[in-house]
């Protein structure tokens, strides 16, 4: 009896819910739970202003996690996010010191630097066959070294340009922060690429089995390299937005984004082994992480407690639905 009613309800539900990944549904359920718990703690938690503010903060993580998702779908990982973010922010701010042309090209220049980091990662992973976690750690260290030398030799300009501030904090459409619009645009582009282009299908194919993808005529190495370049560029763009939000670029600004970006993607149901996952899940993961951060800071949890809760939540959620199949 109950089975038929459930079936009946599910049958009447829109198609996209019936086909949804249980992981994505869990993530959305957790968001609702967090909102509920937050509203018990403080009335203003459900106010539109607060929620919009959260969405704005989430969009920085969202842009970065978009790139991370692309790489994770390949079955790889990008650990160079911290300094890609910092390089994007610092280079964009530094470019603004070179007259009006510098100011105009600040944002593209910052993104370009991130793309370069991504290309180095991509060459290492795709052509030199170095494990991605190792090569991206190495490029992260090199990027850090470059920035230390660069800022140490002379103190470059580190304040954000007007355009960066406008992108991060302005309102092109009244009531909707620009950062949210940017995330929506990037997200929409990502969905389109993943589901409607041969590049996107190749990404899923490589994530499932690179050998099979190669034998079906896909230039897997080029696809992997492009994916890493996009990830680097999006990390840097996230850094540009963050610099605009804080109106200043700083060295360690990216450190706080490595674990959350991986966590957001994985909590959203994307398999860490690659080949499986949807962008909707990543959106849910990003919002979930941002809400968690926000609740912890509203509760005035110290940094130590936040780190512990982060780690525990991520391990717990992964144990719930991120496990590899048993080896038999």
């Amino acid at each position, binding site marked *: 009896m109950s089975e038929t009613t459930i079936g009946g309800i599910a049958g009447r539900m829109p198609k996209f819910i019936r086909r949804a990944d249980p992981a994505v549904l869990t993530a959305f359920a957790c968001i609702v739970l967090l909102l509920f718990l937050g509203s018990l703690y403080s009335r203003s938690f459900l106010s539109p202003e607060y929620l919009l503010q959260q969405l704005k903060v989430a969009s920085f993580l969202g842009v970065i996690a978009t790139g991370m998702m692309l790489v994770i779908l390949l079955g790889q990982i990008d650990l160079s996010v911290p300094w890609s973010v910092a390089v994007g922010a610092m280079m964009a701010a530094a470019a603004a010191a070179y007259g009006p042309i510098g100011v105009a090209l600040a944002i593209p220049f910052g993104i370009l630097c991130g793309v370069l980091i991504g290309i180095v990662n991509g060459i290492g992973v795709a052509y*030199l066959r170095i494990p991605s*976690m190792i090569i991206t750690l190495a490029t992260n260290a090199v990027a850090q070294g470059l920035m230390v030398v660069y800022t140490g030799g002379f103190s470059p300009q580190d304040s954000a340009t007007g355009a960066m501030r406008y992108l991060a904090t302005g309102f092109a459409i009244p009531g909707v922060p620009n950062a949210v619009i940017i995330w929506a645009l990037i997200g929409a582009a990502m969905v389109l690429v993943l589901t409607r282009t041969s590049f996107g299908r190749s990404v899923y194919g490589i994530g499932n089995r690179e050998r099979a993808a190669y034998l079906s005529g896909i230039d897997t190495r080029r696809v992997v390299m492009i994916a890493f370049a996009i990830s680097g560029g999006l990390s840097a763009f996230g850094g540009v937005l963050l610099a605009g939000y804080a109106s200043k670029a700083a060295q360690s600004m990216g450190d706080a984004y490595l674990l959350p970006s991986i966590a957001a993607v994985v909590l959203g149901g994307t398999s860490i082994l690659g080949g499986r996952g949807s962008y909707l899940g990543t959106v849910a993961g990003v919002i979930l992480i941002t809400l968690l951060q926000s609740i912890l800071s509203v509760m005035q949890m110290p940094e130590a407690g936040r780190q512990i809760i982060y780690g525990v939540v991520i391990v717990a959620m992964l*144990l719930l639905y991120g496990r590899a199949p048993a080896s038999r």
Partner: protein
Amino acid sequence: MKDWRYWLAEQRGTLLAFAIFILMFAIYTANHPAGFTANVVQTASNKGVLLAFVAMAQTLVVITAGIDLSVGMIFTLTNCLASWLVIGTGLETAFGVVAVLGTGLLCGAINGAIVIYGRLQPIVATIATGAVYFGIALLLRPFPGGSVNEDLADALTGRLFGVVPASLVALFAVVLIVWVPFSRSVLGRAAYAAGSSETAAYMSGVPIRRGKFAAYALAGLLAAIGGLFLTFFTYTGDAAYASGNAYTLFSIAAVVLGGVSLFGGKGSAIGAIFGALAFRTIGDLLFVFDFDPLWQPLFQGVILLIAVSLGAFALFRVRNRLEWFL
């Protein structure tokens, strides 16, 4: 193949790391203003031994074809814990040392349990547990501080008979007590076998799970020994995020320099120790050549990048393109 040639082939990575270290250390001491004196050797070994312990920890996990991105944070956590506990009378100090080492073992065991029995990917799992360990370290030491039993600290960081650095002797003792028995035990062989080919090892009835678990747990213990020594050198506990991360990163560099394969099943902790000592020496070369210390992070990053890229030469030996894809 003759016995010694077989041995040579097996130890090639270790011997190469040893040669690199000797070469770099010769360049270092030849250009050091004080020259090759007991003092210079003591300072260098005290610095190198810290990384050597963490690199040994990383080796154990890498041999099983895993990776532990939380070693640096276990190192930081045990440093903070030691700055509270390793103090007071002899008995209290002894209890403190046991407690610190036990904490390290526990952290490693948690990693192992999550990765092996929870079947999570080592990268993500250890990044997450690393965040937890760092959070606990920050709870213990929100600000740098604390102290340590200075008699013990001085004894372990000084010199024996006025010549031999005590830290090197301690490193040697740890190798004899932890690494040698482990690598020759059933569990150690199981860890190697699991890294080489998990399926084949499973089919042969090798206790892969226990072997991998032992590797992760002992990695935590070795990182804790490193944390203990950091406390002995600095006399304080400091929950520094950047330093914990740097040790994780450098441990990977040391492991690669030491000839341990990142794909698992190949290499030894001895090689990683020489890799660590070589990496430290290369990093310090900048100082004897009077470079601005600002260049050190970049220099170390580039060494790491080159070290990991060297593995790519194996690609030239690949005959069938399909072998590109593991």
